[in-house]
């Protein structure tokens, strides 16, 4: 089944752009998924690993859940604790909150195994060329470390 990704626009939830869905479709083949921890695996993905300065980098988030664990499928769920080059780039995880369950939730809860793509898409623009690293680390979980090369060439 094709992954479904959503974004928020003016208070409504709509389908994410096709390019984002195409990135998510590559999850099964993604070479460096996150480490499986307690039956859960976080992975972040991007269209490419090479961008120009000023380009929008869209980070797709995937949660893979092993058998019989609950999955809060409704979303897009907010991204907490994402770090870029070691600095927190999103809101911190609220104290006492489960990183995989929104503060207020309305929707189905299904059992794993399941791959859940229904997370917010975080976006970044880099003003300096060079290698940059993104990692999603909510609570005790940690995703793969996504390395992005930003090239100054397109500024010419």
């Amino acid at each position, binding site marked *: 089944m094709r992954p479904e990704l959503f974004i928020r626009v003016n208070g409504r939830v709509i389908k994410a752009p096709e390019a984002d869905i195409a990135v998510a479709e590559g999850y099964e083949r993604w070479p460096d998924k996150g480490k499986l921890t307690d039956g859960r695996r976080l992975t972040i993905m991007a269209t490419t690993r090479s961008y120009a300065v000023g380009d929008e980098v869209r980070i797709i988030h995937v949660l893979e859940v092993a058998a019989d664990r609950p999955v809060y499928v*409704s979303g897009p769920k907010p991204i907490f604790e994402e770090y870029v080059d070691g600095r927190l780039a999103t809101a911190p995880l609220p104290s*006492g*909150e*489960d990183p995989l369950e929104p503060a*207020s939730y*309305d*929707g189905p*809860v299904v059992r794993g195994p399941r791959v859940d793509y*229904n997370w917010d898409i975080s976006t970044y623009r880099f003003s300096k060329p060079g290698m940059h690293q993104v990692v999603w680390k909510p609570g005790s979980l940690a995703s793969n470390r996504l390395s992005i090369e930003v090239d100054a060439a397109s500024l010419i």
Partner: protein
Amino acid sequence: MHRTDAVARLEERGARTPRSHPWEGGRRESEAAQVHPELSTRHGLPHLRALGAESRAREILHLQRVAGNAAVSSVLDMKSTGPVPDDQLDADARSPIGGPPSIAVQRKIGDGHDLSSPRFAGNHTLEAVFDNEQVLDRGSSGPAVKKVQQALIDFGFRLPKFGSDGSYGKETRAAVKSFQADAGIKGKDVDGVIGPQTMNELDLRAAEFPGPGKAIGNGSAPVVGGTGVSVTLPSKITATTTPELMAADRIPPRVDTPANIEVSGLAPIAAPVTLSIDGANAANGTVTIDGAATKDLRSGATVNLRGGVQTAPGNAGNLRLVASQAGTEIARGAPFSVSALPQFYTDAFVNDLLVGERRGVVVQDGWESDSGNVADLDQADISEQVEVTTETGCFAGGGGVVSGYLPASVFTQDTHSSGTATLTAPGHRVAQQTCMFRDKRTGVTDIPMRDSGYLIDRRCIKVGPGFRFLIKKIGTATTANGVPSGAGKGEIIRPPQVV
């Protein structure tokens, strides 16, 4: 018609006679042998006069074929008028045994002795038969034979095996014999051979029925069939449970979908209008009409279409309701599929979340299939839509969500909860919930699900030193994320929960 002396003489004797001899070419030897002794012993008009008109005319043709045109011309004192240019000959002007025309043909359309029904008028071969220039019999073939065959079918004389295939065989001959008897032709003239008398009767019968209709209906307009019967099929074959926004027409399996069929102008002796489902198979889906594969109608009726095998994904819209008469299609309905759809969402209380880090309620979701069996929804998915319309205090900033598509053949449980870490201040959150579905069988997606609307209201209130959490979910006609729906079934109102 060029009226020759011979014609005039024969008409004086009450016979419809050939204006000329049509073609050379022999019948089968056995038939020639049947005729030839008569030719040799009793040739001449006195003998012809003793026969019926049809037999008399046929006799002349036999004489022509067996003895040669010159001989018959001599007997009848006729003269041929010279060869007809090829471009004036019918494309289908062939002798009963298929031999090429080789001698003069004297015929004209518009000579005062012409076929009158639109169905036959103007066809050179049939005009020639009417003018006694040739007969149609076993071995004949071509468009003229096809026209006669179709007429016979339309008149209610069955050609079950070969239909109107343009070849005059045993089946056609039997049908012609039936027609001849039905038309009041007597005795040995009931022989299955079409000569002038039978052609005349066919022409008269055809005049009772308008000519064949050309259009194949799209289901919205009445279509006139070959016998003048008018058939109107429903403009759409779709169940009333099909959502208005759904572009694909479909009926569910297991239950009846009524379809009103209008039939008028069907003559008592004409074949009935037969309804059937074109395209029915394991991939496209199967449908019965009043419990059977076909249904014969002699007048308008409401029939019940019932889906059987559901349409497989990728095969949508390959089914059509077809009306035919004696094997000839006269109306064809719009395409449709067989597919069950989800509707009538329900929610029922399962349990409260009273301990741990969440407060709220778990509810059991349910819905119906319009087929009556949720297992039929194995190619449908449902997506919940939640739009937040009020968010204050501790609930601020959450926003709505969607579930994405989940299998419709498996019921889910919804959780409506908030983390205790959030419930540290008063707040109010109101959300609207509806559902939409997609159906792989018909290829539709994002269709609002009938009666799946709810209002979800949660509050956090301060009571003494602590807080209480209140939640209710009530069926309400509403819209969420642009997906409108009527009220779902269920009202879950929970007592205050201690945070």
